[in-house]
């Protein structure tokens, strides 16, 4: 468990860097897994008829896309394993206890779509602890900005709030 100074020092820590290519099959499979039967995700002709130049991704796909298409040959630098680079946090959660995904948000500049190559850079944006009912609650907020790898334009920002209760 980290003290206040250690938590403060975590802010700005880089949690991950990953380059991913968005492919059709994982996206179509993901849509089925979130019970979305829209043919936009399955049939390129339907996507085109709906005005999409390429099949778009379901809204929460950015959370999982580095499990797909993160091939070694397109990585420029170090790659962190784990959901949004949780392992980069080191000893913060070493006190045991429950680790919970408390909140999640996405801000989209445009939909992610098949054929994109996106580069994600993650950082810790908040880290603090609170006492509650004799337990210590540690809050870590991580943000990953996914940019078009070619143009550098921001596509989607993912924010994850992790809570550790000891």
């Amino acid at each position, binding site marked *: 468990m980290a003290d206040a100074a250690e938590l403060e020092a975590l802010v700005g820590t880089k949690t991950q860097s990953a380059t991913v290519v968005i492919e059709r099959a994982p996206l179509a499979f993901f849509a089925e897994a979130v*019970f979305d039967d829209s043919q936009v995700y399955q049939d390129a002709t339907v996507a085109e008829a709906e005005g999409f130049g390429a099949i778009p991704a*379901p809204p929460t796909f950015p959370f999982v896309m580095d499990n797909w298409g993160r091939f070694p040959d397109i990585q420029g630098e170090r790659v962190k394993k784990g959901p949004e680079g949780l392992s980069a946090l080191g000893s913060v959660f070493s006190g045991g206890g429950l680790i919970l995904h408390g909140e999640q948000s996405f801000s989209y500049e445009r939909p992610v779509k098949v054929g994109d190559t996106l580069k994600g850079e993650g950082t810790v944006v908040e880290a603090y602890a609170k006492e509650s009912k004799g337990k210590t609650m540690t809050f870590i907020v991580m943000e990953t900005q996914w940019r078009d790898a070619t143009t550098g334009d921001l596509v989607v920002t993912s924010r994850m709030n992790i809570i550790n209760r000891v």
Partner: protein
Amino acid sequence: MTTGLKKSDLAIGMSAPELRHVLTRTDLVRYAGASGDYNPMHHDEVKATQAGQPSVFGHGMLSMGFLATAITTFVGIGNIVDYSVRFVSQTWPGEELVTKISVTGVRDEGDTHLVDLDVRLTNADGQEKVVGSASALVMA
């Protein structure tokens, strides 16, 4: 963008059609594969019960994903600009999950028209699973 909502058709308090789904263990296995989240609490009944859970339980991100399906069904695919949730409680196999989406605002940002939504996933008894908000582009 799939055909979206029209600003003139929207009013505060309006509700989107509910989506309902009875969660199964197979759903959890499919989401594990689709997401790469192989935490055994979501697919391994033996490990989940050894850890003191009554059974395996659903991924929080599956709840958020199903709620997103209801949002895009309402506002049109490709139109969401912000989507944010808080995870309130676990989901369990056998539970019927219900999406509840209502309009909280209709606004303009320059030439852009937006709808703001209160978004919730509950079970059939109304117990909240995830609670949040979303904003999406709408047509004039």
